[in-house]
């Protein structure tokens, strides 16, 4: 993972002469943002990894963070549309990958958590995820486990009785910050000038990505790195398209309940219709109705299905949805709250294929082997590359 500064400077020298290489790390990624109050240490990361994989932190003793964020599946639960928690209870949202989540400015599809530390609090106690009655149940397990007690003492300098969710979530977040991946064929071509790294079709797809596809306005790339997100929320016509007539009733009922103390995290994962309200459930803004966070495109080829509800099975379906102007089938009604950036694109079949080829070039080396199985699981015939 760590490259020498000299090697990177040479590699990118032709492309971006004036830009200094600021941080070590995978090609194509910015410097890793690490909170000053939660520095990375090997011991903390190891502790976080153990917590992440501990199935005891669930009501049934068989679900951990890793149940839905499977390392071997690029930290998703592909090919599930929406995640399964305890007793196969299903939530309402497609598990977002942990990989590169460290670069997100908010967490969850609707951004209801500001950072990885806060995010880690919620699934433990959500009734359709790990369903612990409260965080004390988790802390009791940690405090009663001599190995954990020793680790927490070493990493945070706290006694068993003094371990709180603050330390638990900081350790998990530290582990998650190690799950970053760049070095994709696209990165080697675009940032390192390796001409043969991607196909001519993928290169054409990148042109469409920047131009007729209008993709880059939200899936942003920078001069010397690309996280492929603007960190904003957009109504792109997924989910809310299916509940258009119910929006006034749902929105009102949700607002009334929220003002009476409803737990938003529980509400949006328990009810599919409420889930489709998206960012509106978090910030109460009309302009957020039905909108969700722009997700990264890195490793997108191995994390099917797509969108917050996992309703689109293939990358081609995704491009077609955008090409139709925010409807999955051309004849479907557009929802009134559609983002102003979404409109019919009139892409050619060739441009659509090219865009898919471009996205297929965004897979990091460590996930390349997943591609075959992901494609098979999504029920797609043929080989796209």
């Amino acid at each position, binding site marked *: 993972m760590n490259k020498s500064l000299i090697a990177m400077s040479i590699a990118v020298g032709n492309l971006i002469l004036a830009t200094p290489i600021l941080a070590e790390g995978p090609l194509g990624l910015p410097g890793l943002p690490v909170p000053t109050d939660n520095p990375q240490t090997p011991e903390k990361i190891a502790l976080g990894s153990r917590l992440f994989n501990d199935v005891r932190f669930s009501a049934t003793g068989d679900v951990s963070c890793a149940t839905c964020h499977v390392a071997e599946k690029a930290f998703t639960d592909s090919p599930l549309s929406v995640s399964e928690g305890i007793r196969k209870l299903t939530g309402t949202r497609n598990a977002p990958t942990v990989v590169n989540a460290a670069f997100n400015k908010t967490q969850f599809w609707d951004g209801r958590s500001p950072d990885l530390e806060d995010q880690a609090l919620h699934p433990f106690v959500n009734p359709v995820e790990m369903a612990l009655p409260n965080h004390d149940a988790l802390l009791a397990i940690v405090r009663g486990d001599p190995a954990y007690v020793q680790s927490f003492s070493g990493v945070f300098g706290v006694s068993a009785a003094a371990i709180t969710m603050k330390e638990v979530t900081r350790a998990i977040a530290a582990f998650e910050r190690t799950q970053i991946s760049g070095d994709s064929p696209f990165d080697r071509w675009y940032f390192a000038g390796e001409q043969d790294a991607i196909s001519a079709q993928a290169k054409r797809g990148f042109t469409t990505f920047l131009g007729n596809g*209008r993709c880059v*306005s939200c899936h942003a790339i920078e001069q010397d790195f690309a996280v492929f997100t603007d960190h904003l929320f957009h109504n792109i016509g997924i989910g809310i398209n299916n509940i258009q007539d119910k*929006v*006034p009733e749902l*929105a*009102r009922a949700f*607002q*009334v309940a929220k*003002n009476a103390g409803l737990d938003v995290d529980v509400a949006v994962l328990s009810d599919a219709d409420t889930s489709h309200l998206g960012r509106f459930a978090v*910030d*109460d*803004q*009309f*302009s957020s*109705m039905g909108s969700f966070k722009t997700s990264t495109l890195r490793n997108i080829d191995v994390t099917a299905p797509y969108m917050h509800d996992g309703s689109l099975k293939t990358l081609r379906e995704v491009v077609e949805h955008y090409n139709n*102007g925010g409807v999955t089938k051309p004849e479907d009604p*557009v929802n*009134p*709250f*559609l*983002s*102003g*950036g979404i*409109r*019919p694109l009139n892409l050619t079949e060739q441009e659509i294929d090219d865009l898919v080829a471009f996205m297929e070039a965004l897979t990091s080396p460590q996930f390349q082997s997943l591609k075959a199985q992901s494609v098979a699981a999504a029920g797609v015939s043929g080989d796209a590359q």
Partner: protein
Amino acid sequence: MKNIAVSNRRDFLRTTMSGVIAGMLPVSLVRLSYGKEGGPDFTFAYISDSHIQQVKGNQFVRNWDRGLIRAVAEANLLEPKPDFVVFGGDLAQLGSKPELDHGAEMLAKLNYKTFMVMGEHDYYLDLGEYWSKLYGKHYYSWNHKGVHFITLNSILTYDDWTFDRWESDERRMNEMAGLDNPNGSPFMIGAKQMEWLRKDLAKISKDTPIVVFSHSPLQKIYKGWNFWTEEADDIQAMLKPFDKVNVIYGHVHQIQYNQIGNIAFTSVMSTAWPWPYPESYALAESHLPILTVPMNRADPFNERDATGWQFMSMHTGRVDLEFNLYNNSNRTIAFNTAKGHPEDTTFTDPENRIPAQQHF
């Protein structure tokens, strides 16, 4: 800023006696006493300048359709429900029956009583004939909860421009739609309507709050774009004897506010597209009200950027406007009783402003 606004609202929601939700807009909806002593509170919504435009047959400009559809859908989500909605004119782009019908169909989805204002784009093809079939009178007044509301048709002009000058109705429409057009003509309400207004106001006591809806500003801002009403000075003189007068106008597709004597002027946004400020664009001198905080230019990617609609509440005889703006921070233009004029509650303080882009 946004967080503060939200938490204010939450505080209000938690402490309000009624217990009902008091507005889904992220605003601090303080319970406001209105107008004459003991007058009831109320709110209304304002949608304007949708410019529904036919391409051919059943095909209309998608962008303008989306703007109106979205404003209507959002206005229907308001809590508490507004007492009524005003549509501020320019429903159509070129005044044709298909455009007015298509716009009317979208407006009909509003769950509220709707009052219509005439815009020049609705008028100059057939001089308002088809619009009248849909919506009735071109100017009228009514009373609501202690307030006297007046809707003017302010986009008329000289008879010798309107009649017998153009070889076709379409030509007349297009000439009036142009900006900086030497063939154009200034907006007026005309002698007949002026007399009607005089009589209408004669019946109203001077302490009754008055709200006037017009399409063009009843003040002279910039003649080249008809940000202008020719008899503005005379109309203002007629309104002067009243304690509290509010003028709400469309046409300008941007946020403006101004105070002249007792009259508070506030513009509304278009659901279709924004205009830049004349001062940043025109070669001519601009009289844009100095209280106005300039808007940044629109993001061309986001079709809804720099468009929006308004939610209005009455405040001791004054109208406060909440601008619902997509892809932007929402803005509030409220009457500042201490200063005696409307102002942007957030961005009047230069410290809070997002620096405006000066190059185009």
